[in-house]
């Protein structure tokens, strides 16, 4: 299988702080990979390099066949293939729910108004929020906002989705609905997903592979069952021990 995302000796610095160290990773097309680790370990930073929200200083980062770090790469073109869902949803506050979904397809993909609206309504229906189409983001709950944000990303027909702690800002009773939608998205056979999360049960359920990070390094990269049953890295097993206790 060919790879969708490939890190080759990637280094990322914030000033003198070495945020990502010697990252070498390959995520194949159609795979669902969950990224876990303590806070400050660089998980979010790693996810955000994939669509160029964070720049890398060394190495190569190949996304869908193009090197992100190459200056001649059109980053906006890559971003249309890579959807992103944020911890704080970041719905466009000046647009209603439907417009949130329709905006980028209209101005970036230049989709016809009719087709755009049809796709948008279908997506809102899929995430169970067709009846909220004309609400403003401030009028819906966090869980609903995150489902809209997922629909908004899917409207671009991405090949790959990045989920950056999609449920961390949600009330507990809203998490299930959002995870349900993410599960559905990742189950699409041609969708590649990278998910940063603290939901271990969910990770076990959806992930093909789990990557454990600490201090800007990838410490373990294993098939899901093996990772949760027999983590080979000591820090990973400590981390799991702490998380699963609660």
């Amino acid at each position, binding site marked *: 299988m060919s790879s969708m995302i490939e890190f080759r000796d990637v280094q990322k610095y914030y000033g003198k702080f070495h945020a990502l160290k010697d990252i070498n990773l390959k995520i194949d097309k159609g795979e669902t990979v969950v990224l876990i680790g303590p806070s400050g370990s660089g998980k979010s930073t790693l996810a955000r390099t994939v669509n160029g929200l964070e720049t890398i200083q060394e190495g190569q980062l190949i996304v869908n066949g193009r090197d992100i770090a190459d200056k001649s790469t059109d980053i*906006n073109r890559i971003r249309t293939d*890579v959807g992103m869902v944020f911890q704080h949803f970041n719905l466009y506050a000046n647009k209603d729910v439907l417009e949130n979904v329709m905006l*980028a397809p209209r101005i970036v993909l230049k989709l016809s108004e009719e087709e755009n609206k049809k796709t948008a309504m279908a997506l809102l229906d899929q995430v169970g929020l067709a009846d909220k189409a004309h609400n403003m983001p401030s009028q819906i709950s966090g869980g609903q906002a995150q489902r809209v944000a997922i629909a908004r990303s899917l409207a671009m027909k991405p090949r790959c989705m990045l989920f950056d702690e999609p449920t961390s800002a949600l009330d507990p009773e809203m998490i299930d609905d959002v995870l349900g939608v993410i599960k559905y998205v990742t189950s699409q056979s041609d969708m590649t997903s990278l998910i940063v999360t603290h939901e271990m049960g969910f990770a076990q359920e959806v992930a093909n592979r789990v990557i454990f990070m600490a201090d800007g390094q990838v410490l373990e990269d294993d098939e899901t069952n093996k990772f949760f049953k027999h983590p080979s890295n000591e820090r990973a097993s400590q981390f799991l021990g702490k998380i699963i206790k609660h």
Partner: protein
Amino acid sequence: MIKLLVDNWSAFISGFGWTVLSSLLALFFSLIIGSLFAILEVMPSKVARVIGNVYVEVFRNIPLLVITMFFYLVIPLYVVKINGFTAGTIGLTIYTSAFIAETVRSGINSVDDGQMEAARAQGMTFWQAMKNVVLPQAFKLVIPPLGNQFINLVKNSSVLAFVAGFDLMYQGNAIASTTFETVNTYVVVGLFYLVITLPISYYMQHLERKLA
């Protein structure tokens, strides 16, 4: 006072007209120029930010009268002949645009970074994200301070009087010096300014309530 107003009606009205025209032109162009420099100040490119910053710091820290005199005296000498009205309006535009740039920039900075990030993550360019997502939110936030800038602009248009711009203040000076009814004249002039500024003030409050 009524007699003064009636006797000099055409002069007052002509002055009022030029003041309104100058204010409208300056408002329109300073809003555009100010917004452009505000965007320059928040662009990813460092060069753009420096250009924006230099423009704002230079023009908001020089007195309006000095800027206006510069356009009135220096430009005709070396570039192109312009009259007092044009020079005054250009000076007013540039001076006000520096303040509008600062106002709009503070609005842009108050919009959550996540908004720009989400838009960029969907493949929008910086300008598309600005235009469709960030600026509409930023302008909504800065309606009250923008209203202040517009009102200041109208009042500052009295600088035209110094460069023979035939505005309200210029006509007031002329009327006062021929009729010697100094106090009455400037009361009338003040009332004419209120005719322009009060509706702006009221309209901005209305806009603020409507969009809140």
